[in-house]
Protein backbone atom coordinates (compact mmCIF):
# COMPACT_ATOMS: atom_id res chain seq x y z
CA UNK A 1 0.00 0.00 0.00
CA UNK A 2 1.09 3.60 -0.27
CA UNK A 3 1.36 6.06 2.53
CA UNK A 4 -0.93 8.66 1.00
CA UNK A 5 -3.80 6.17 1.32
CA UNK A 6 -3.19 5.94 5.03
CA UNK A 7 -2.90 9.60 5.99
CA UNK A 8 -6.23 11.08 6.99
CA UNK A 9 -7.94 7.67 7.18
CA UNK A 10 -10.56 7.35 9.97
CA UNK A 11 -9.48 5.18 12.90
CA UNK A 12 -11.93 3.05 14.93
CA UNK A 13 -11.55 0.92 18.00
CA UNK A 14 -12.50 -2.75 18.10
CA UNK A 15 -16.16 -1.92 18.76
CA UNK A 16 -16.36 0.50 15.85
CA UNK A 17 -16.10 3.64 18.01
CA UNK A 18 -14.52 6.65 16.25
CA UNK A 19 -11.10 7.65 17.57
CA UNK A 20 -9.84 10.18 15.02
CA UNK A 21 -7.83 10.12 11.84
CA UNK A 22 -4.32 9.06 10.96
CA UNK A 23 -2.27 12.22 11.38
CA UNK A 24 1.15 10.76 10.76
CA UNK A 25 2.90 7.42 10.42
CA UNK A 26 5.92 6.73 12.60
CA UNK A 27 8.84 4.64 11.42
CA UNK A 28 12.04 3.48 13.09
CA UNK A 29 15.37 2.74 11.48
CA UNK A 30 16.50 -0.22 13.57
CA UNK A 31 16.97 -3.09 11.14
CA UNK A 32 20.25 -4.14 9.60
CA UNK A 33 21.15 -1.93 6.66
CA UNK A 34 20.89 -3.82 3.37
CA UNK A 35 22.95 -1.40 1.41
CA UNK A 36 23.11 2.19 2.66
CA UNK A 37 20.44 2.58 5.34
CA UNK A 38 18.13 0.26 7.23
CA UNK A 39 14.61 0.14 5.88
CA UNK A 40 12.22 2.21 7.97
CA UNK A 41 10.00 -0.20 9.94
CA UNK A 42 6.48 0.93 10.74
CA UNK A 43 6.43 1.66 14.45
CA UNK A 44 2.90 2.95 14.80
CA UNK A 45 0.31 5.53 13.82
CA UNK A 46 -0.14 9.02 15.24
CA UNK A 47 -3.89 9.53 15.60
CA UNK A 48 -5.44 12.96 15.90
CA UNK A 49 -9.03 13.46 17.04
CA UNK A 50 -9.20 17.07 15.84
CA UNK A 51 -6.93 17.79 12.93
CA UNK A 52 -4.78 15.79 10.60
CA UNK A 53 -3.10 18.79 9.07
CA UNK A 54 0.65 18.90 9.42
CA UNK A 55 2.13 19.51 12.86
CA UNK A 56 4.66 21.75 11.09
CA UNK A 57 7.29 20.35 13.37
CA UNK A 58 5.69 21.31 16.66
CA UNK A 59 5.25 17.73 17.82
CA UNK A 60 8.94 17.70 18.46
CA UNK A 61 9.61 18.49 22.07
CA UNK A 62 12.31 21.01 21.39
CA UNK A 63 10.31 23.37 19.19
CA UNK A 64 8.54 26.03 21.24
CA UNK A 65 9.21 29.26 19.32
CA UNK A 66 7.53 31.48 18.33
CA UNK A 67 5.32 30.97 21.36
CA UNK A 68 1.99 31.90 19.78
CA UNK A 69 2.42 29.66 16.73
CA UNK A 70 3.52 26.76 18.92
CA UNK A 71 0.54 27.27 21.18
CA UNK A 72 -1.99 27.39 18.34
CA UNK A 73 -0.60 24.32 16.60
CA UNK A 74 -0.39 22.32 19.84
CA UNK A 75 -3.98 23.25 20.57
CA UNK A 76 -5.10 22.10 17.14
CA UNK A 77 -3.47 18.76 17.77
CA UNK A 78 -4.60 18.30 21.36
CA UNK A 79 -5.51 14.73 22.27
CA UNK A 80 -3.24 13.20 19.63
CA UNK A 81 -1.77 9.85 20.57
CA UNK A 82 0.43 7.08 19.21
CA UNK A 83 -0.67 3.45 18.79
CA UNK A 84 1.92 0.81 18.05
CA UNK A 85 1.83 -1.59 15.12
CA UNK A 86 1.09 -4.48 17.52
CA UNK A 87 -2.25 -2.84 18.41
CA UNK A 88 -3.48 -2.48 14.82
CA UNK A 89 -6.01 -5.09 13.71
CA UNK A 90 -6.68 -3.98 10.16
CA UNK A 91 -5.53 -1.29 7.75
CA UNK A 92 -7.10 -0.03 4.55
CA UNK A 93 -7.61 3.14 2.58
CA UNK A 94 -11.05 3.72 4.09
CA UNK A 95 -10.54 2.75 7.69
CA UNK A 96 -8.06 1.56 10.27
CA UNK A 97 -9.25 -0.69 13.12
CA UNK A 98 -7.39 -1.18 16.37
CA UNK A 99 -7.27 -4.28 18.55
CA UNK A 100 -9.27 -4.48 21.77
CA UNK A 101 -7.38 -3.04 24.72
CA UNK A 102 -4.90 -0.99 22.63
CA UNK A 103 -2.58 1.38 24.46
CA UNK A 104 -2.44 5.14 23.83
CA UNK A 105 1.09 6.44 23.97
CA UNK A 106 2.25 10.04 23.89
CA UNK A 107 2.74 11.22 20.32
CA UNK A 108 5.64 13.44 21.32
CA UNK A 109 8.94 12.66 19.68
CA UNK A 110 11.85 12.19 22.02
CA UNK A 111 14.41 14.80 21.11
CA UNK A 112 17.35 12.46 21.55
CA UNK A 113 15.88 9.84 19.26
CA UNK A 114 15.24 12.45 16.65
CA UNK A 115 18.92 13.21 16.21
CA UNK B 1 -15.63 59.77 -5.84
CA UNK B 2 -15.39 62.81 -3.61
CA UNK B 3 -16.18 65.91 -5.51
CA UNK B 4 -14.14 68.67 -3.99
CA UNK B 5 -11.46 68.51 -6.62
CA UNK B 6 -9.04 71.30 -5.92
CA UNK B 7 -8.00 73.61 -8.68
CA UNK B 8 -4.43 74.16 -9.68
CA UNK B 9 -2.13 76.44 -7.77
CA UNK B 10 -1.82 77.32 -4.12
CA UNK B 11 -5.58 77.42 -3.57
CA UNK B 12 -5.74 73.68 -4.12
CA UNK B 13 -2.76 73.13 -1.91
CA UNK B 14 -4.39 74.72 1.09
CA UNK B 15 -7.56 72.61 0.89
CA UNK B 16 -5.46 69.47 0.96
CA UNK B 17 -4.18 70.18 4.40
CA UNK B 18 -7.68 70.20 5.87
CA UNK B 19 -8.68 67.00 7.59
CA UNK B 20 -12.13 65.59 7.73
CA UNK B 21 -13.79 64.47 10.87
CA UNK B 22 -13.78 60.68 11.20
CA UNK B 23 -17.50 60.38 11.80
CA UNK B 24 -18.21 62.46 8.75
CA UNK B 25 -15.95 60.21 6.75
CA UNK B 26 -17.80 57.08 7.77
CA UNK B 27 -21.09 58.75 6.84
CA UNK B 28 -19.66 59.87 3.52
CA UNK B 29 -18.43 56.34 2.87
CA UNK B 30 -21.85 54.91 3.63
CA UNK B 31 -23.48 57.44 1.35
CA UNK B 32 -20.94 56.51 -1.26
CA UNK B 33 -21.64 52.80 -0.84
CA UNK B 34 -25.37 53.23 -1.22
CA UNK B 35 -24.99 55.66 -4.10
CA UNK B 36 -22.29 53.71 -5.90
CA UNK B 37 -24.70 51.49 -7.79
CA UNK B 38 -25.05 54.00 -10.57
CA UNK B 39 -26.23 57.52 -11.18
CA UNK B 40 -25.38 59.46 -14.25
CA UNK B 41 -24.06 62.45 -12.36
CA UNK B 42 -21.76 60.22 -10.28
CA UNK B 43 -20.21 58.67 -13.38
CA UNK B 44 -20.02 62.02 -15.14
CA UNK B 45 -18.25 63.69 -12.27
CA UNK B 46 -15.73 60.84 -12.04
CA UNK B 47 -15.09 61.16 -15.76
CA UNK B 48 -14.67 64.93 -15.44
CA UNK B 49 -12.27 64.49 -12.53
CA UNK B 50 -10.12 62.02 -14.47
CA UNK B 51 -10.16 64.35 -17.45
CA UNK B 52 -9.13 67.42 -15.54
CA UNK B 53 -6.22 65.42 -14.08
CA UNK B 54 -5.26 64.51 -17.66
CA UNK B 55 -5.52 68.08 -18.93
CA UNK B 56 -3.53 69.41 -15.98
CA UNK B 57 -0.80 66.84 -16.71
CA UNK B 58 -0.70 67.83 -20.36
CA UNK B 59 -0.37 71.51 -19.44
CA UNK B 60 2.55 70.76 -17.13
CA UNK B 61 4.20 68.78 -19.93
CA UNK B 62 3.69 71.64 -22.42
CA UNK B 63 5.03 74.24 -20.01
CA UNK B 64 8.08 72.05 -19.30
CA UNK B 65 8.55 71.68 -23.05
CA UNK B 66 8.50 75.45 -23.50
CA UNK B 67 10.97 75.82 -20.61
CA UNK B 68 13.25 73.25 -22.26
CA UNK B 69 12.90 70.86 -19.36
CA UNK B 70 11.25 68.02 -21.23
CA UNK B 71 12.36 66.12 -24.30
CA UNK B 72 10.03 65.94 -27.29
CA UNK B 73 9.72 62.17 -26.90
CA UNK B 74 8.64 62.45 -23.28
CA UNK B 75 6.28 65.36 -23.99
CA UNK B 76 4.53 63.65 -26.88
CA UNK B 77 4.28 60.36 -24.93
CA UNK B 78 2.71 62.24 -22.05
CA UNK B 79 0.18 63.84 -24.40
CA UNK B 80 -0.62 60.46 -25.93
CA UNK B 81 -1.17 58.91 -22.49
CA UNK B 82 -3.42 61.71 -21.34
CA UNK B 83 -5.42 61.81 -24.56
CA UNK B 84 -6.11 58.11 -24.01
CA UNK B 85 -7.44 59.05 -20.57
CA UNK B 86 -9.81 61.61 -22.13
CA UNK B 87 -11.01 59.08 -24.68
CA UNK B 88 -11.70 56.53 -21.95
CA UNK B 89 -13.72 59.10 -20.00
CA UNK B 90 -15.60 60.09 -23.14
CA UNK B 91 -16.62 56.53 -23.96
CA UNK B 92 -17.73 56.01 -20.33
CA UNK B 93 -19.98 59.05 -20.54
CA UNK B 94 -21.23 58.04 -23.98
CA UNK B 95 -22.28 54.61 -22.69
CA UNK B 96 -24.43 56.05 -19.88
CA UNK B 97 -28.19 55.68 -20.18
CA UNK B 98 -29.63 58.75 -18.50
CA UNK B 99 -33.12 58.39 -17.05
CA UNK B 100 -34.28 61.98 -16.73
CA UNK B 101 -34.19 65.04 -18.93
CA UNK B 102 -31.80 66.66 -16.48
CA UNK B 103 -29.39 63.74 -16.71
CA UNK B 104 -29.57 63.74 -20.49
CA UNK B 105 -28.62 67.40 -20.38
CA UNK B 106 -25.65 66.66 -18.08
CA UNK B 107 -24.46 63.90 -20.38
CA UNK B 108 -24.60 66.17 -23.40
CA UNK B 109 -22.72 68.98 -21.67
CA UNK B 110 -20.05 66.54 -20.50
CA UNK B 111 -19.59 65.18 -24.00
CA UNK B 112 -19.23 68.70 -25.35
CA UNK B 113 -16.57 69.58 -22.79
CA UNK B 114 -14.69 66.32 -23.37
CA UNK B 115 -14.73 67.01 -27.10
CA UNK B 116 -13.27 70.40 -26.36
CA UNK B 117 -10.51 68.67 -24.36
CA UNK B 118 -9.81 66.29 -27.22
CA UNK B 119 -9.60 69.24 -29.61
CA UNK B 120 -7.16 70.93 -27.25
CA UNK B 121 -5.03 67.81 -27.25
CA UNK B 122 -5.12 67.71 -31.04
CA UNK B 123 -3.80 71.27 -31.22
CA UNK B 124 -1.10 70.53 -28.65
CA UNK B 125 0.07 67.37 -30.43
CA UNK B 126 0.12 69.16 -33.77
CA UNK B 127 2.22 71.88 -32.15
CA UNK B 128 4.75 69.38 -30.86
CA UNK B 129 4.85 67.62 -34.22
CA UNK B 130 5.29 70.94 -36.08
CA UNK B 131 8.74 71.06 -34.50
CA UNK B 132 9.20 74.75 -33.59
CA UNK B 133 8.24 77.81 -35.54
CA UNK B 134 5.36 76.17 -37.35
CA UNK B 135 1.71 76.76 -36.63
CA UNK B 136 0.16 76.02 -34.25
CA UNK B 137 2.77 76.86 -31.65
CA UNK B 138 3.10 75.06 -28.35
CA UNK B 139 1.62 78.05 -26.55
CA UNK B 140 -1.43 77.82 -28.83
CA UNK B 141 -1.81 74.23 -27.66
CA UNK B 142 -1.49 75.32 -24.06
CA UNK B 143 -4.13 78.01 -24.60
CA UNK B 144 -6.53 75.47 -26.11
CA UNK B 145 -6.00 73.15 -23.15
CA UNK B 146 -6.43 76.03 -20.70
CA UNK B 147 -9.80 76.75 -22.28
CA UNK B 148 -10.80 73.12 -21.95
CA UNK B 149 -9.64 73.13 -18.33
CA UNK B 150 -11.87 76.10 -17.51
CA UNK B 151 -14.85 74.46 -19.17
CA UNK B 152 -14.20 71.25 -17.24
CA UNK B 153 -14.05 73.12 -13.95
CA UNK B 154 -17.28 74.97 -14.64
CA UNK B 155 -19.13 71.79 -15.44
CA UNK B 156 -17.66 70.00 -12.44
CA UNK B 157 -19.09 72.74 -10.27
CA UNK B 158 -22.51 72.17 -11.75
CA UNK B 159 -22.57 68.39 -11.59
CA UNK B 160 -23.09 67.58 -7.95
CA UNK B 161 -23.68 63.97 -7.15
CA UNK B 162 -26.66 63.15 -4.93
Amino acid at each position, binding site marked *: *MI*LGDLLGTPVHDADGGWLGRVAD*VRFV*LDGTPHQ*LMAEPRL*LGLVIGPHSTASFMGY*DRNGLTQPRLVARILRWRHRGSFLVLWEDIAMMGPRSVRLRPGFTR*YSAALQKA*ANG | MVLTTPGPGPAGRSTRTGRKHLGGLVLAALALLTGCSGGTSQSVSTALEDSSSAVATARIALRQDMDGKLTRAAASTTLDDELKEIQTSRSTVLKLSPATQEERETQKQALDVLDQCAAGFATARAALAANDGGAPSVSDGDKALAGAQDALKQLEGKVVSP
Partner: protein
Amino acid sequence: MTSSPDPLLPAPPVAGRVLDAQLHLLDRQVLDHDGVPVTTVDDLELSGPAVDVEIEPGTAAPVVTALLTGPVLGTRIFGGRPPSSRLIRIPWKDVAEVGVVLRLGISGEPLDAGWVERWVRDKIIARIPGGRHDPR
Protein backbone atom coordinates in the same frame (compact mmCIF):
# COMPACT_ATOMS: atom_id res chain seq x y z
CA MET C 1 2.31 25.66 27.69
CA THR C 2 5.17 23.23 27.46
CA SER C 3 4.98 22.58 31.15
CA SER C 4 1.47 21.06 30.99
CA PRO C 5 2.02 17.38 31.79
CA ASP C 6 1.25 14.84 29.09
CA PRO C 7 -1.19 12.36 30.65
CA LEU C 8 -0.20 9.61 28.23
CA LEU C 9 2.62 7.14 28.66
CA PRO C 10 5.74 7.93 26.73
CA ALA C 11 6.22 5.55 23.83
CA PRO C 12 8.44 2.55 24.64
CA PRO C 13 12.02 3.39 23.71
CA VAL C 14 13.37 2.04 20.44
CA ALA C 15 16.92 1.38 19.39
CA GLY C 16 17.03 3.23 16.08
CA ARG C 17 16.28 6.67 14.78
CA VAL C 18 12.60 7.59 14.64
CA LEU C 19 11.16 9.14 11.48
CA ASP C 20 7.67 10.53 11.15
CA ALA C 21 6.49 10.24 7.58
CA GLN C 22 4.88 13.68 7.26
CA LEU C 23 7.51 15.41 9.29
CA HIS C 24 10.76 13.88 8.07
CA LEU C 25 10.10 12.29 4.72
CA LEU C 26 7.12 13.53 2.73
CA ASP C 27 7.60 16.67 0.62
CA ARG C 28 11.34 16.76 1.22
CA GLN C 29 13.77 17.43 -1.57
CA VAL C 30 15.66 14.41 -2.98
CA LEU C 31 19.24 15.02 -4.15
CA ASP C 32 21.45 12.55 -5.98
CA HIS C 33 25.00 11.72 -4.92
CA ASP C 34 26.30 14.82 -6.72
CA GLY C 35 23.83 17.08 -4.94
CA VAL C 36 21.67 17.56 -8.04
CA PRO C 37 17.93 17.79 -7.25
CA VAL C 38 16.06 14.75 -8.52
CA THR C 39 12.52 15.28 -7.24
CA THR C 40 10.60 15.63 -3.99
CA VAL C 41 9.19 12.78 -1.94
CA ASP C 42 5.62 12.80 -3.17
CA ASP C 43 4.61 9.59 -1.41
CA LEU C 44 6.05 6.39 0.11
CA GLU C 45 5.42 2.76 -0.76
CA LEU C 46 5.06 0.21 2.04
CA SER C 47 5.68 -3.53 1.91
CA GLY C 48 2.31 -4.25 3.50
CA PRO C 49 -0.02 -5.05 5.06
CA ALA C 50 -2.65 -6.48 2.74
CA VAL C 51 -5.44 -3.93 2.45
CA ASP C 52 -8.52 -4.54 4.62
CA VAL C 53 -7.31 -7.98 5.73
CA GLU C 54 -7.17 -8.90 9.41
CA ILE C 55 -3.57 -8.65 10.63
CA GLU C 56 -2.47 -11.76 12.55
CA PRO C 57 -0.93 -10.87 15.91
CA GLY C 58 2.81 -11.21 15.67
CA THR C 59 3.01 -10.23 12.01
CA ALA C 60 6.25 -8.40 11.24
CA ALA C 61 5.73 -4.68 10.71
CA PRO C 62 5.74 -3.41 7.12
CA VAL C 63 8.71 -1.35 5.90
CA VAL C 64 9.14 1.50 3.46
CA THR C 65 10.26 -0.03 0.17
CA ALA C 66 10.41 2.98 -2.11
CA LEU C 67 9.99 6.72 -2.47
CA LEU C 68 7.25 7.58 -4.96
CA THR C 69 7.01 10.52 -7.29
CA GLY C 70 5.21 11.65 -10.43
CA PRO C 71 1.41 11.50 -10.86
CA VAL C 72 1.03 10.27 -7.29
CA LEU C 73 1.42 13.91 -6.16
CA GLY C 74 -1.77 14.84 -7.97
CA THR C 75 -3.72 11.97 -6.49
CA ARG C 76 -2.39 12.68 -3.02
CA ILE C 77 -3.70 16.23 -3.28
CA PHE C 78 -6.91 15.70 -5.23
CA GLY C 79 -7.78 12.12 -4.25
CA GLY C 80 -7.81 8.81 -6.07
CA ARG C 81 -4.65 6.92 -6.89
CA PRO C 82 -2.75 6.06 -10.04
CA PRO C 83 -2.44 2.41 -11.08
CA SER C 84 0.59 0.70 -9.59
CA SER C 85 2.24 0.52 -13.00
CA ARG C 86 2.28 4.31 -13.25
CA LEU C 87 4.06 4.86 -9.94
CA ILE C 88 7.57 6.16 -10.36
CA ARG C 89 9.73 4.53 -7.70
CA ILE C 90 13.10 5.26 -6.16
CA PRO C 91 13.95 2.13 -4.13
CA TRP C 92 14.74 2.80 -0.48
CA LYS C 93 18.00 0.88 -0.83
CA ASP C 94 19.32 3.81 -2.90
CA VAL C 95 18.68 6.31 -0.10
CA ALA C 96 21.94 7.21 1.62
CA GLU C 97 20.97 9.85 4.13
CA VAL C 98 17.87 11.42 5.65
CA GLY C 99 18.29 14.94 6.93
CA VAL C 100 16.82 18.27 5.89
CA VAL C 101 16.94 16.62 2.45
CA LEU C 102 17.10 12.99 1.34
CA ARG C 103 20.35 12.09 -0.37
CA LEU C 104 20.63 9.17 -2.75
CA GLY C 105 23.76 7.07 -3.01
CA ILE C 106 23.49 6.94 -6.79
CA SER C 107 23.42 9.29 -9.75
CA GLY C 108 20.02 10.72 -10.62
CA GLU C 109 20.68 10.56 -14.35
CA PRO C 110 19.33 7.07 -15.16
CA LEU C 111 16.36 7.20 -12.77
CA ASP C 112 12.80 6.96 -14.05
CA ALA C 113 12.02 9.96 -11.87
CA GLY C 114 14.07 12.13 -14.22
CA TRP C 115 12.48 11.30 -17.56
CA VAL C 116 10.55 14.56 -17.93
CA GLU C 117 13.66 16.57 -17.14
CA ARG C 118 15.65 14.56 -19.71
CA TRP C 119 12.93 14.94 -22.32
CA VAL C 120 12.73 18.73 -21.85
CA ARG C 121 16.51 18.94 -21.93
CA ASP C 122 17.04 16.83 -25.04
CA LYS C 123 14.07 18.06 -27.06
CA ILE C 124 14.06 21.76 -26.15
CA ILE C 125 16.65 23.36 -23.91
CA ALA C 126 19.80 21.72 -25.27
CA ARG C 127 18.74 22.69 -28.79
CA ILE C 128 18.64 26.40 -28.04
CA PRO C 129 22.05 28.01 -28.72
CA GLY C 130 24.00 28.30 -25.49
CA GLY C 131 21.94 25.63 -23.78
CA ARG C 132 25.03 23.77 -22.71
CA HIS C 133 27.06 26.87 -21.93
CA ASP C 134 28.58 26.83 -18.45
CA PRO C 135 27.68 30.10 -16.74
CA ARG C 136 30.69 29.99 -14.42
